[in-house]
């Protein structure tokens, strides 16, 4: 059984940033002068658009969005919401993203202003301040030739060897800062190449990355029931001198038996294909990575005095095999997925932990649950050792009743149980006024591996849940959620309830509470649970056209927050949250 050798507040997929921002949030000297000043970019953006509009005011159109979050921190030592800069001194933290896009025929460009003001989104236990142009890009299509420069979000295949994407709640934004060019060889085949550096907030990596792919589409004659969508991709990473020096400085302290082969360049390649035949669709992808240096927190390292410790850099090749078979018919939909992952931690900077500096994305093999207690224990994707299967079946009995069954089976490569889940759901719509959802979730969760709770037994949960929506008339509705988690492990059982009243088209009012039902035995082992606390939340949402405002008073238990198999630990929260979203 492999275990994590580092205690983390984030979880094990999050990390340190690549080494480019100092503790004051400023870009380190070694990384300065690498970004165009924000004012110059803004000027350039306005100048180009003004020029285009001056020639033909109707040539294009502006669009954009604004998202802003504000957190007021109110200390509550009973739930552990204290002893962080926010609770002790800052008291307020905020984030803001302003997107501006301009589009005209085959030409478009965009710019995003990012602001983090004493924000805990980067490190839930810390405080980060920084603002500036987070993203800019210019894109043009000239017949079959397509290019984009600036910051680029893209992926190859399912993302196993390369994915640049943004996930704001998890503070992930690993856009490529560089250029991408693609060419449509013909109607069905396309070749793409890209090169650049990996973005990290307002700076970017020392190492560079380049890659490309060829994707195609093959089908039979007109009316054919089959098609293929094959593709191959590759990624090459080149370490800069500073990174090479730092890896060398670290590895040179190893005994030769723990030594590695260090190269300036790392390589990854993948081949993938989607076969579609009538109602069946089969996606397969195989990926291979070599010459890469990555940190393995579980690997034993022998020091020169003979002491064996844990955690070292490794250079073993990595592999991922992933397959997904989908059958979709009128009433039934079935998805079967399988994945095997070995040594596929892929970072632009080997010193970066978790998701910061991530080059790739490995698809999860567990359902992404949304209800509070069904999502309480989430299985984060394991990058070094995982073999997993997942099945998802949906069936519509009739127009009023739909059923869903999902199962997850995840082990490590040594056969140790990591995660099991059976999730069932029934949705009943007897008429237009009622929408009833209910089901049962069973889990077996390796808390030792996922949360580093060494020595604690796997958490076995049974979670019945219900979600009832009743529309009183065209404008008023009420929704009730009730969930109960039964478990004898970790923090014991929980109960959760929510009431939501909707007054269309503007208002939504919500009240919820979560309460711990730990047994005396659990409270003896975990005294912090003796202070029984209601995790009470109340708030409102106001919608006005494309604007949305929400204000919530929140007491939130600490736990794992996941998105697409990528997770992080969120400490307990106590305070007021203000969120704004505007699309224009």
């Amino acid at each position, binding site marked *: 059984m492999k275990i994590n050798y580092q205690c983390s507040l984030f979880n094990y997929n999050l990390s340190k940033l690549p080494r480019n921002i100092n503790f004051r949030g400023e870009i380190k000297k070694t990384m300065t002068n690498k970004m165009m000043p924000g004012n110059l970019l803004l000027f350039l953006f306005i100048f180009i658009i003004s020029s285009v509009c001056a020639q033909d005011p109707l040539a294009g159109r502006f669009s954009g969005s604004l998202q802003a979050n504000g957190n007021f921190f109110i200390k509550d030592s009973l739930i552990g919401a204290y002893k962080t800069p926010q609770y002790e001194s800052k008291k307020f933290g905020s984030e803001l993203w302003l997107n501006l896009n301009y589009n005209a025929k085959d030409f478009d460009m965009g710019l995003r202003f990012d602001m983090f003001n004493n924000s805990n989104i980067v490190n839930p236990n810390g405080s980060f301040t920084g603002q500036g142009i987070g993203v800019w890009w210019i894109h043009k299509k000239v017949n079959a030739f397509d290019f984009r420069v600036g910051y680029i979000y893209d992926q190859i295949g399912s993302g196993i060897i390369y994915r640049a994407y943004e996930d704001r709640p998890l503070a992930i934004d690993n856009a490529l800062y560089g250029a991408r060019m693609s060419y449509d060889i013909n109607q069905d085949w396309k070749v793409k190449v890209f090169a650049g550096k990996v973005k990290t907030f307002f700076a970017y990596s020392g190492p560079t990355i380049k890659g490309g792919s060829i994707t195609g589409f093959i089908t039979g004659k007109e009316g054919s029931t089959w098609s293929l969508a094959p593709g191959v991709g*590759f990624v090459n990473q080149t370490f800069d001198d500073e990174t090479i020096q*730092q890896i060398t400085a670290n590895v*040179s302290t190893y005994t030769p038996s723990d030594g590695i082969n260090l190269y300036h360049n790392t390589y990854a390649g993948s081949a993938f294909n989607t076969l579609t035949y009538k109602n069946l669709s089969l996606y397969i992808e195989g990926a291979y990575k070599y010459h890469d240096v990555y940190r393995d927190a579980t690997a034993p390292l022998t020091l020169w005095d003979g002491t064996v410790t844990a955690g070292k850099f490794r250079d073993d090749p990595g592999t991922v095999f992933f397959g997904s078979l989908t059958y979709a018919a009128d009433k039934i939909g079935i998805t079967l997925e399988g994945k095997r992952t070995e040594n596929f931690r892929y970072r632009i900077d080997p010193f970066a932990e978790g998701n910061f500096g991530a080059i790739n994305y490995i698809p999860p093999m567990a359902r992404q649950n949304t209800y509070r207690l069904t999502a309480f224990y989430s299985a984060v994707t394991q990058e070094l050792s995982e073999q997993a299967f997942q099945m998802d079946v949906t069936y519509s009995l009739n127009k009023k009743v739909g059923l869903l069954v999902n199962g997850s089976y995840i082990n490590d490569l040594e056969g140790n149980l990591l995660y099991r889940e059976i999730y069932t759901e029934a949705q009943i719509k007897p008429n237009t006024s009622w929408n009833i959802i209910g089901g049962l979730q069973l889990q077996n969760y390796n808390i030792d591996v996922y949360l580093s709770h060494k020595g604690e037994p796997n958490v076995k949960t049974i979670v019945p849940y219900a979600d009832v929506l009743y529309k009183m008339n065209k404008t008023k509705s009420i929704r009730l959620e009730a969930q109960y988690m039964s478990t004898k492990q970790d923090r014991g059982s929980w109960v959760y309830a929510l009431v939501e009243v909707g007054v269309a088209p503007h208002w939504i009012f919500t009240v919820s509470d979560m309460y711990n039902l730990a047994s005396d035995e659990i409270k003896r082992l975990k005294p912090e649970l003796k202070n029984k606390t209601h995790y009470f939340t109340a708030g409102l949402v106001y919608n006005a056209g494309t604007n949305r405002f929400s204000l919530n008073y929140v007491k939130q238990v600490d736990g794992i927050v996941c998105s697409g198999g990528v997770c992080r630990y969120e400490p307990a929260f106590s305070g007021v949250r203000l969120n704004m979203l505007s699309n224009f």
Partner: protein
Amino acid sequence: MRNILFILLTVSFLACEKDPIKIVYGPPSNTSDQKVLMEEFTGFNCTFCPQGSDDITSLISLNQGNVIAVSIHSGFFAMPNPQKNKYDFRTVDGDALYTLLGAGGFYPAAAINRTGFSTTPEGGLVNNQTSWAGDINTLRENPAAAGLSIETSYISVTRELKIKLTGIAKADFNEKLLANIMITESGIVDWQKDARVETPVKGENASYIHNHVFRDAVTQIAGDDFVTNPSKGQTFTKEYTYTLSGAWVAENCEVIGFITSSSSGKVIQVNEAKVVH
């Protein structure tokens, strides 16, 4: 189509390096007079921190005492378990160091001479244990820019501790240097989570020995003025009088003194001295 695929594959293979970079493996050479300060962040509830503490002990030994450790209990993992812990090692100054050095979610982590080889997500100066040995090696490749000695005298009746720092510049400086003093205590027995323990309670050590525990900062957290623009060969001194807490075992306490740069915040030189000789 085939031609393009062939060209891409050929180019990618041609780009491959045949030989790896030559790495010379070996223990620390210990030829430098540069000492290294490790400010480690740890806590009772950090199950992997005892392994980190053992690594620090090894690094001190391998570097022949030229590594000086301070274990700061602060943050989420440092909250004591009221049912199991006798002590609470958290301090106001420790929490201030947590913020100053940008400790974050990963424990154990340590700032190595506050050089910021790597940063935490919010941009801190601490680094994980995989990198400690390498960071120390890198720092000890160069000669120290300053020397520092510490003299202590202790009166057990009054628990009055006098500390004298004497620095010497080994290069010309064009900035203000700051004096920093911390008090640590070793040999404290208290409950600790420990991933390596199997019995009697898996994952727990009820009689764990805590070493290098940060007790207090004698100086300001950001350092006190020491000397401005010293030239090569210039010596400078600063004296402090401090009353040791009655809760600490004076014989197990040490004084950690270090010089920091006012411009970069980095540690220039560090040394240690026993409170009771």
